[in-house]
Each structure stands twice: as structure tokens, then as C-alpha cells.
């Protein structure tokens, strides 16, 4: 099999009247080793390389500061606090947490998007124009935002993200992703408080 075919054994035989016929060689080569080599290289490349280039998500954190005047103030009316618990559970409340915990609600990663959209819409609906907004509008216009006229309407909308110790890294990335998806301009990641932790624990216990 693995040999160059030199044609028939009689190809070099003299054929009548002393006419010497040129030796006819076929050009057929056994290709098996070449195929072997080709597939060997394919296998090598499949195993040693990666297909997808990873993407990156930019994350900018604020500097920790103790000074009161450097800290960002959040209007309670536009605040949405999202807490991440274990087993991909999401808890949230709007504005300030009531002492009896009556506005503390539970949802999942599927449901949180609607919560964010609804809250954003209600902040936009209750928008009251103020003279400071001109700067925000001009800034959005300069950045090329197609919706720049409305840039100031959701300025009070702030999402506060508080993952607890049982939340995974995936949960954290997912919720940050949700901020990008819903175009939330202001969000912050801060440590969870004890009263919130207790409410999460209580909800987890009652759910079982």
C-alpha cells in the first residue's frame, strides 16, 4: 500500500521494431501518512488553543473615605437596595428599610430585572426639573447619548448592591451585568448590615 506505484511491470518492455517506449510512471502517491499527519496536527491544535477571546467587564470602585462631605449622598426616594443571598436568591427593598421589614421582598435573578425597570420608570415618572440638571444634560449630549434630553430624569435612581457571605462571584458579576443591561448609571457595592442579614436568614428559614 504505502509505495509509489511504478505502473505495470511490463511497461519497460520493448514493443516491436526496436521502438523504445518511454517508461510511463503513474503519479499516484499513497496519501495515508499525509492524512495521518494532518489529523494529528488538528488534534494538537484543538487541545492546545482556545476559541473564544475572553471579554472583560470594567469595574471602578470608589475610594474608601471617612469624611462625610466626600461621601455620596443617596436620595431615599430613588434608592433600590439589592441583596444577594445563597442559592442564587435575590432580596430587595425600595427606599429605606422599614423597621418591621414589611418592604423587604424576595425574588430571583430572573425577576430582578423587572424590579429594576419598574423602579427606574417610577423614578423617571416622579422627576421634578431642577436647575442643576442642565449640566447633566449637556454632559450626556457631549458624550453622544441619543437620549440626552432625558439624561437627567433618572439622576436620583441609585442601586445599592449588598452581596452577603453566601453569594457567589457569579451572582456578583450577574448583578453588575444587570446594571449594564438596564443602563443604571449610579450603583454602589457596599457591605451588608446586620438587620438585613437577619431578614435574609428569617426568609430562608421560613422558605423551607
Amino acid at each position: 500500500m504505502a509505495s509509489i506505484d511504478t505502473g505495470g511491470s511490463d511497461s519497460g518492455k520493448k514493443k516491436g521494431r526496436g521502438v523504445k517506449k518511454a517508461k510511463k510512471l503513474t503519479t499516484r502517491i499513497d496519501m495515508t501518512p499525509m492524512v495521518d499527519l494532518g489529523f494529528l496536527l488538528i488534534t494538537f491544535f484543538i487541545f492546545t488553543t482556545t476559541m473564544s477571546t475572553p471579554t472583560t467587564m470594567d469595574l471602578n470602585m470608589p475610594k474608601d473615605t471617612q469624611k462625610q462631605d466626600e461621601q455620596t449622598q443617596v436620595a431615599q426616594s430613588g434608592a433600590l437596595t439589592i441583596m444577594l443571598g445563597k442559592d442564587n436568591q435575590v432580596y430587595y427593598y425600595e427606599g429605606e428599610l422599614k423597621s418591621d421589614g414589611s418592604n423587604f421582598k424576595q425574588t430571583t435573578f430572573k425577576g430582578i430585572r423587572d424590579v429594576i425597570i419598574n423602579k427606574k420608570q417610577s423614578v423617571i415618572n416622579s422627576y421634578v426639573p431642577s436647575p442643576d440638571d442642565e449640566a447633566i444634560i449637556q454632559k450626556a449630549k457631549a458624550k453622544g447619548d441619543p437620549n440626552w434630553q432625558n439624561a437627567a430624569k433618572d439622576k436620583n435612581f441609585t442601586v445599592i448592591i449588598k452581596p452577603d457571605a453566601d453569594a457567589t462571584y457569579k451572582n456578583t458579576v450577574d448583578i453588575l451585568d444587570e446594571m449594564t443591561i438596564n443602563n443604571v448609571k449610579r450603583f454602589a457595592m457596599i457591605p451588608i448590615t446586620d438587620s438585613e442579614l437577619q431578614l435574609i436568614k428569617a426568609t430562608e428559614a421560613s422558605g423551607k
Partner: protein
Amino acid sequence: MPSVKIPRKSTDFDMTPFVDVAFLILTFFMLATKFKPPEPVDITTPSSVSADMLDEKDALLISMDKDNRVFFTITLQSTEDQGIYDEIIQKINKDKNLNLNNAEMANFRKTSFIGVPFSQLKALLNTPSDQQKDLKQPGIPMDTTGGELTYWIQASISAFAGRQIAYLIKGDDNAKFPTFENVIQALKRNDQLKYNLITSPEAVPAGTELYKQRQAALSGNKK
């Protein structure tokens, strides 16, 4: 009984198309893929809608695996900057009194990732670089103030001497949030506030604001 003579057929057949296909696939894989960087552990990154591609530049890569172990990798854009490795390990050696000898410090250049406490660094650097991946590394000790990772970042920043460094954080889906928070703390304590989280691409859910924005940007480009 008359014997029936079965004509003997040759088992040879033309393999040329087969070769063509094999090399076509080979060419595709060579062009469409790129080599995997050496990885300390298997990490499944979470997906995000972010479309920013990862740039190749000087970077510190901090990996978190599913057991919350933290690894530290220095990636240099140019191979001519190998001296940076030496500066980092010399600084760590001096600050932490590790008594590393020259051969151990030279091995640091070939060490692709670090996942040991300072106390075990000598043992790691004594291991030839091709055997290091078989070593079970416990991860860099972390605490709520950043742990030993803080010192690695500090040493790297001083070695890079003002050059731009990207901080890449590559976490596994199942890494716990406190680990991530501790990594952030280590970076914050070095006054570094901008990070890149490595994620795998994901489609934007239809109907959302970002989806509309991207669609608008696409149709804008077509015009």
C-alpha cells in the same frame, strides 16, 4: 463444482479529498484560535454582556478558583522586561526576610503563577518550573484587609515603576463573594480602583435598554 472467480479489486482509493479536508480544518484551527495561557487551575468564568475585548498588556492577573484559593500571575507584554520579575522577587525577599538564594530568585521568572503563602515560597521556587503545576498550592492567604496579596501588588507596582498596569480579576462561578471582596481590598489598599473582570461573552437579552442601544448603534453604523 465450478469455481466462480471473484475479481480481485484493489483496496487503494484516492485519498486526495481527504487530505484536502484535513488541511482545511487544520488551517481553520490555526487561524481562528490562539494558544491557551498556562492556567493554575480550572476556572469557569461567569458570562456577561460586556463586549470589550481583553487587551494584551502588562497586567496582574488575580485568579480565584471554586475553593476560594487565590493565585497571582504577572503578565508582561514584552519579553524584554524580564527584569521586572527580578525586582518583584527581590523586594518581596527583602521585605519579608525570606532568605531566598539567587537560584531561587532566578526561578521566579519561570514561575507562571503563585498560590502559596510567603512561608512556602522558598519551597515553590525550589521546584523546577515544569513540575510546579503538580504541586498542590494552597492559595495566597487572604483576609478582610487584603492579606498577603497586598504585598505582592505593592511589590509589583514599585517594580513596574509608574507604567500602566491592568488589574485582571478572573473568578470562578462558584467562588464566594467574600474572597472577591478581599481581593478588592488588597487592590484598594494599594490605591488601585479600576479593575477588569474577565468574563465570557453572552448575548444581550432582547427588549432591554442595552439591547435597544446596541441596535441603535448598529443601524447607525449601517447608514
